[in-house]
């Protein structure tokens, strides 16, 4: 059991290294006089975007599935990204240009993500089944989308364009200067989550049993909400809303590892999430000479059928 998990972790790690190498050196070979500048200013941040967003999104998905005690939960389907989107839109359209910096972006996205996550969490107490919750998540997303549209009708064309590009989701928006910030947030999120392992494992049995095993359930849930918003919010701020990674990868992790030990699930989800997004970006680079596909389109092409399959299997 343990051995199999270690093999899978090692295997995924090796695949990740290979993909990283292909991404940096095979598909984007160094050319010309500016190659070093291009490498550090464009290629590395792009790779880091994929690595960090993949890791963070799948970890936030794992946390949400634990919090909602529901394998179909995830930052995208439950409208957490939408909350972040809405707040970013409000910021881009409403704030003075001088106010638009790293800090304001990330805090707006995190605030939006946290409010959306809390809202969905409160709602989840009132609905009994997964399907209703997912529908409410969808409604929430289309509601925030509508507000964004209304806001855009007041905006200058330049702002609308900025928002439109951001909404497509992209691994090429993050600059070299921004990378350490996102890196620090994601690493903090992963380490913080590792300290929650005991509680996460117990929470699998439901609130009552977790309580009986000495877990401070309420406190734990607030921390989970906070870390989820931190991860999903910051990634949404830097890369735009990226769909399905957070839902699909933790499910894949449980299916492959056949465990509910969150220590292993966290490590594997982080690795597999990175692997998945880097692989997606490798695919984008491969197809680039013929057509340019936004990252969201590819994650949806692969993620949506898998999620549909999971839904069907649940019945």
């Amino acid at each position: 059991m343990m051995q199999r998990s270690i093999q899978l972790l090692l295997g995924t790690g090796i695949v990740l290294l290979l993909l990283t190498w292909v991404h940096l050196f095979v598909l984007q070979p160094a050319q010309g006089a500016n190659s070093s500048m291009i490498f550090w200013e464009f290629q590395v941040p792009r790779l880091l975007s994929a690595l960090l967003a993949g890791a963070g999104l799948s970890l936030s998905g794992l946390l949400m599935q634990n919090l909602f005690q529901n394998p179909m939960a995830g930052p995208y389907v439950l409208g957490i990204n939408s909350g972040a989107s809405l707040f970013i839109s409000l910021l881009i359209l409403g704030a003075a240009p001088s106010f638009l910096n790293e800090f304001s972006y990330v805090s707006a996205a995190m605030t939006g993500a946290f409010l959306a996550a809390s809202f969905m969490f409160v709602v989840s107490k009132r609905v009994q089944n997964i399907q209703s919750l997912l529908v409410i998540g969808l409604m929430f997303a289309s509601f925030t989308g509508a507000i964004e549209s209304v806001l855009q009708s007041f905006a200058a064309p330049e702002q609308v364009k900025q928002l439109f590009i951001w909404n497509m989701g992209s691994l090429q928006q993050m600059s070299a200067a921004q990378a350490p910030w996102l890196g620090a947030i994601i690493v903090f999120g992963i380490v913080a989550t590792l300290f929650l392992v005991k509680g996460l494992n117990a929470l699998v049995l439901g609130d009552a049993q977790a309580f009986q095993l000495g877990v401070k359930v309420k406190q734990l849930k607030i921390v989970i909400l906070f870390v989820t918003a931190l991860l999903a919010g910051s990634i949404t701020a830097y890369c735009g809303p990226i769909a399905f990674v957070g839902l699909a990868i933790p499910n894949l992790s449980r299916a492959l590892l056949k465990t509910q030990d969150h220590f292993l699930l966290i490590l594997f989800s982080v690795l597999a999430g990175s692997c998945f997004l880097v692989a997606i970006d490798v695919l984008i680079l491969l197809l680039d000479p013929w057509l340019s596909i936004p990252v969201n389109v590819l994650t949806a092409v692969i993620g949506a059928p898998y999620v549909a399959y999971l839904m069907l299997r649940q019945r």
Partner: protein
Amino acid sequence: MITIQQAQVGYQTTLIDIAELVLPAGQIYALIGRNGSGKSTLLQTLIGQLPLRAGSMSLGPYALTELQSNAALRARQVSFVASMFTGVEALTLHAYVSLGRVPHLGAFGRLQATDLQFVDKVLQALNLSDLAQKDTRKLSDGERQLASLARAIVQDTPLMVLDEPASFLDYFNRELLLDQLLHWVQQDTARTAVFSSHDIDLCLQIGIPMLVLHQHKLTLLTKPTKQEVMALL
């Protein structure tokens, strides 16, 4: 040992009034009462989920209020078995039973060699070793309920509370479960178990003391007979 004084048990209204009651350790107590008489409410109070409306209660050396505010301490004093565990996908029986060790583990939840030995010993005693790697979703109701008992045993607390643990079990599994529970209590004189049940005949047959809930009162019958119980209900 459980000591209760001038206690009022209930959510918004008082369901049970207990003037004074002492339950010595080293016994299994069967909690008997009609539907809606407040059996579950009393059990919720015993496990620290529900505060008393008035009065005091202590479990061993600890006051109930102390256990309510100290989660780590509570988890080492009281374990709980619900009437039904439906299983969790990808959670093996071994992993489920091991969760009983959670109160004794560090932040990362890693099981030490001694924890694993303890789990293996309990699994063996309950004849569950062969099922250890099976998914909890794929076990039978009886197997799952025994696993829940194993998890509570592994938690290693002086008090174990069980809410109708045998209600979904067939005759043989019911006997097996109660046998194992008796065995657990007899191993250590500091141990106490309280379980709620509708199976009066079975409880009379194994000759354990009964706590009878009737008309907002709780009566302890140390050597119950059927007439006595029926007269109260």
